[in-house]
């Protein structure tokens, strides 16, 4: 009476024994071809030579370019302007990650993980372009673990700082440093923008979110 039956669980995942698959059906496992890459240890992070990366990118294309540094990941790369939709400019890296900017302010990212899906930055943008301080509210939208849109609404104080010389790639100009200090409940972040005399953001350091932290953008060519 008390003998218990056993049960077969076919674990599609294959647990720790899942090594790799091959073929044209998605088995959910890394393909044989990608194994060497997966097994290789990531190279130790070295401080990237921004000048060399910028020069190489500018030599490669006549398109507008921007240098991107994601601090938390020790990643330095360049992005090119690939599409314009009204005021929104979409910039792409060679590995298909994109950043959407409106006059240098990040409104969206794609492919960075915990992407900013969309933003409301209108008031900040106007103050920056005018190089004026003020108090604004901005909204960044993310997806949560269930793919639901969640909003981070931040109250920000923009202040005008000193004038500095900024240079990167083909750009060398004097710019005003604008600071944007934001708080949203228990999250605080501070963005910085260098704005030239025509109201253009030439360089910036902006907060993407809790996972990605800060990103630095340096315009290399208009």
């Amino acid at each position, binding site marked *: 009476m008390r003998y218990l039956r056993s049960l077969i669980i076919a674990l599609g*995942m294959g647990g720790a024994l899942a090594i790799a698959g091959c073929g044209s059906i998605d088995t959910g496992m890394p393909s044989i071809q990608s194994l060497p890459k997966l097994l290789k240890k990531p190279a130790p992070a070295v401080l990237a030579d921004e000048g060399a990366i910028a020069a190489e990118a500018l030599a490669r294309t006549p398109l507008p370019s921007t240098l991107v540094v994601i601090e938390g990941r020790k990643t330095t790369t360049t992005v090119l302007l690939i599409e314009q939709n009204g005021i929104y400019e979409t910039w792409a890296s060679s590995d298909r990650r994109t950043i959407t900017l409106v006059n240098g302010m990040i409104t969206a990212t794609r492919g960075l993980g915990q992407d900013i899906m969309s933003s409301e930055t209108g008031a900040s943008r106007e103050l920056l372009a005018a190089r004026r301080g003020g108090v604004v509210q901005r909204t960044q939208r993310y997806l949560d673990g269930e793919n639901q849109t969640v909003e981070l609404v931040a109250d920000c104080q923009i202040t005008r700082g000193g004038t500095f010389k900024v240079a990167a790639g083909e750009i060398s100009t004097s710019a005003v440093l604008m600071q944007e200090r934001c708080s949203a409940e228990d999250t605080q972040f501070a963005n910085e923008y260098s704005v030239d005399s025509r109201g253009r953001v030439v360089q910036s350091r902006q907060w993407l979110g809790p996972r990605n932290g800060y990103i630095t953008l340096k315009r290399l060519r208009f």
Partner: protein
Amino acid sequence: MMKSSIYYSLAVMGALSPAIASAQGTTISTRLNTYGEAGGLIDMPTAEVAPDAQLSTTVSHGASSTRTTLTFQILPRLSGSFRYVGIKGLIVPGYTLPTYYDRSFDLRYQLIKEGTYRPAVAVGLRDFIGTGLYGSEYIVATKSVGPSLRFSAGVGWGRLGSFNSFASSGTRPTGLLGAGGIPNYDRWFRGPMAAFGGVSYQATDRLSFKIEYSSDSYAQEAASGLVTRKSPWNFGVNYQVNKTMSVAAYALHGEEVGALVSFALNPKTPGVPGGTETAPQPVSVRAAGSAADLGWTVEPNSQANIRQTVAQSMSAEGLVLEGLDLQPTSAEAVVRNPRYDISAQAVGRAARVLSRTLPASVETVTVTQAVNGVPTSSVTFRRSDLEALEHAPATAILSRASFSDGSKAWRSINAVDGIYPRLSWGLSPFTKLSVFDPDNPVRFGFGARLKGQYHIAPGWLASGSLAMVLGGNITGIRRVRPPGLTVPVVRSDYGRYERTNKPKIEHLTLAKFGHPGPNLYSRITVGYLEPMYAGISGELLWKQPSNRLALGVEMNYVGKRNYDGMFGLQNYRVATGHVSAYYDLGNGFHTQLDVGRYLAGDYGATLSLDREFANGWRIGAYATKTNISSTAFGEGSFDKGIRISVPLSWAFGSPTKVRSNTVIQPLTRDGGSRLNVNDRLYDTVRSTHQSQMINSWGKFWR
């Protein structure tokens, strides 16, 4: 509006989630006790709850008992547990093996939330189905004092009323209802009752201490000489190793020591929220005035050239263009989606490709998803809306989209050249796990599986899977059904199908999928349908894109396959089939009712209930009762089980349609058994339908 919820998801993604989330409210605890229940004590229950949707596995060992418990926080205040226990040396009449194994199910509901002065109160049932080794009921209150201290006190019946009882509520029956496996409702809250309680102290984020007064006399263990219970006091310390894992050690009964390890995860918290997949191609905005230009319609080969461009851009997104109906101001693309488990993302990417590739005069854009060559759902946009709303919240484009069932495409769109016929294949390793066999409670096997799919024409699919076990001890299952039962052996001999080390045909079928009318979908499959049965299976599904209710009917005539997994059949033949109703209850809960004839020729019904998460996780339970009596069914009385389906995209952070499906069926018997046939319509169709797409619509622009 949804402002606060990001902090929840950000908090759990970031640092260690706090052990005690709030002093008031739901009284959440991430600690698990030796019974695998949320709670800060040791053997005794508390009124604490786990974070909503937490799924945990706890293995505890002490006093010759090893308990493995799977617990799911079904709702914020309701949790359920399934436990498998092995007690070495327990003396049980009629049981001969050295280790006694038993399964148990628990439920707990938090009746009252904690207030400033009021404690949280919960009521619970332990081992409320079956033999009742751990059978007990309790009402318990828990009160937080400051951020680190929690006091619990309660009253228990059954096992929890067995030590130092102070009163009695009637007589507690000891006999089983049916052949076990039926809720022992006649015992609940009856018999001697006793008080228990304890204190937990959260010393740091990771470390906590607990003391409890146990009302469990461990009578059966003591009678078997396994436990000497010198004291009702138990002491414990718990250490949270990381976000998922914690360990604990105990001093029990003044005599024994025990240890515990637990793993907890939450379906709401994936590796990377939003995923790490590469960026979509952005929308391309048409130049002002270009929409009036119809010049392309008179150019030679323009249709073919455009179709080729669209197909190439789609393939850069991992999508396959199956057909394109191009008119001067409208277009409909039929798209197959082998990559994205979230359909809204596939449709969003397809729509952006179309904005980049279609002539400027095309204003109405329809994306139709095809599954197994059958269009199942169409979403229509104004191209101007796609252009205008690319950088707006996803709800903006949702309010402009219109949904239909895709049947227009089935009638009018021709396939793109070169899409059919098409062969795809895959070779991958697999593992199998077999649990609950008392001869060997955990068996595993690993091997290689070769799969092939030949898409002959739209809706026609030849498919096969060949598997070979290369190692492990799964081929050693020898247990057979106890003698004396008369129900035909239709599933209980599954172990015999596992005994071979030779290649086995898991399935080898030819299927025809169709869309015979509006909101109607059909499937006919013939061949070796599953490892144990071969024959013919036909299905018809009625499902509207936005209706919560769907109805289906399935009829099969099958024969039982030989144990060697090759082409031969045994003598057993049966006609089996069901009428099914599927209903979306809302808030992520789905239910299904199947009524019909089962593999053993028995008639009955299966009721299932699943909690589904928008990211694809599904956790549920089902029960089947047929006209086979509980005596004829044997131990367990009727068929029931728990099922868990995990989308691998959740674990890996990049889109894939592959999922890991696990069914935990405590007893595999013959009554109430169903055929397992691939590509049942409801699951293949519904992910493309409006109600499912809206759940994850945030991914449209991802």
